């Protein structure tokens, strides 16, 4: 059911990243470039077709100051409602779990319970509070996540966590749906003589007209 992290990047190529000019330098890596972060991506059996990775995890070794912006669509998916609730209670987070395959949107109370179940399971495995776990989902609207394959994959996913570029790449592939390329970038710059890094990954190809707040 799983493919290892360093195979993930072979499924789709990386996107060209059009960074604006500025006093920053692009460096290798994505979400793992900054100090304290690990990432992993693997196939967990959630996608309807193919074996492209479909589960990603990003963790922080310490309580990370957390911010979120979310769709203003009134019909918001269960993980969106969950994350908004978590970030109203907590200013920090330790992990972000992302699945591709099912969006868990328009799935009602059962879909929300699925998010809670995933968060609780991950929090136990990581030994952190459920209020420090954030969840994102993407895929087919109207379908609940395939919870059993997801829960069964969590121990393997955690074992794959890495500070490496490969870990970041695997995660960036695992969150894609109809994307033809994965999107990941990291930069480095200095503030007051201290080196700071920012990294990131994103996915999106269709149903794209964000209005997040």
């Amino acid at each position, binding site marked *: 059911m799983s493919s290892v992290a360093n195979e993930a990047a072979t499924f789709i190529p990386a996107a*060209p*990243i*059009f*960074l*604006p000019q*500025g006093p*920053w330098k692009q460096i290798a890596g994505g979400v793992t*470039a*900054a*100090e*304290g*972060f690990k990432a992993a991506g693997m196939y967990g059996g959630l996608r309807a077709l193919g074996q492209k990775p479909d589960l990603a995890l*990003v963790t*922080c070794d310490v309580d*990370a*100051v*957390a*911010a*979120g*912006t*979310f*769709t203003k*669509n009134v019909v*918001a*998916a269960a*993980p*969106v409602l969950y994350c908004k609730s978590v970030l109203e209670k907590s200013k920090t*987070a330790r992990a*972000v779990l992302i699945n591709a395959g099912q969006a868990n949107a328009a799935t009602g109370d059962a879909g929300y319970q699925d998010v809670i179940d995933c968060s609780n399971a991950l929090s136990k495995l990581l030994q952190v509070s459920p209020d420090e776990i954030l969840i*994102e*989902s*993407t*895929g*087919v609207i*109207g379908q609940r996540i395939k919870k059993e394959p997801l829960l069964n994959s969590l121990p393997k996913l955690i074992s794959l966590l890495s500070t490496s570029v490969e870990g970041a790449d695997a*995660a960036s592939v695992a969150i894609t749906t*109809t994307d*033809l390329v994965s*999107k990941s*970038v990291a*930069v480095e*710059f200095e*503030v*007051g003589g*201290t080196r*700071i*890094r920012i990294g*990131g*990954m*994103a*996915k*999106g*190809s*269709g*149903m*794209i*007209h*964000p*209005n*997040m707040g």
Partner: protein
Amino acid sequence: TLLGVITTDALVDADAWRKMVQIAVNRSFNQITVDGDTSTNDTIVALASGLSGSNKISALHSPEAKQLQACLDAVMQGLAKSIAWDGEGATCLIEVSVTGASSEAEAAKIARSVASSSLTKAAIYGRDPNWGRIACAAGYAGIPFDSNALRIALGDILLMDGGQPLSFDRSAASNYLKEAGDAHGTVKIQISIGDGPGTGVAWGCDLSYDYVKINAEYTT
């Protein structure tokens, strides 16, 4: 659907970080469009570990905060542009820049209106330098401006100035679009609506037959 995770080792106060993230999202992900459909799941999560050893950033207007904001903007814009570039069925990225508005927000709204226009997007796929559709989309953005101040350029080719259409080299303009499409490159549309200080940018992609094909087959 748009999903993203941003990480940094900057040491930043939670309230300041949340404001900075919203500002950066407004300048990047909220300025892209592929098909005009706002997802149920769009989410950006941004985490700051504080492990860089830097001084804590808490005041938004401090020089350090401005530096961090600029870098955050850049990272999010890089990712956002890649999403528009990878729009379903797209052959090119469209970058719409607006200057001369009263504020950044007004310029951004006009830019996104043009980037969202199905007729403008289809014209670009058809390699048609259709300044009329661009002007139309700018005009219905909901931001009042003097139509006699409207200026539109496609790449380096000026199509309209002072609200008047110009006799531009149509084949050169069409070729500019064709070359961008053939190389999956970038089409730049520059619009000026006056002499105000507000500037804004939005990103989209052209609209091809493949968009319908992909979404006719991707069921709910």
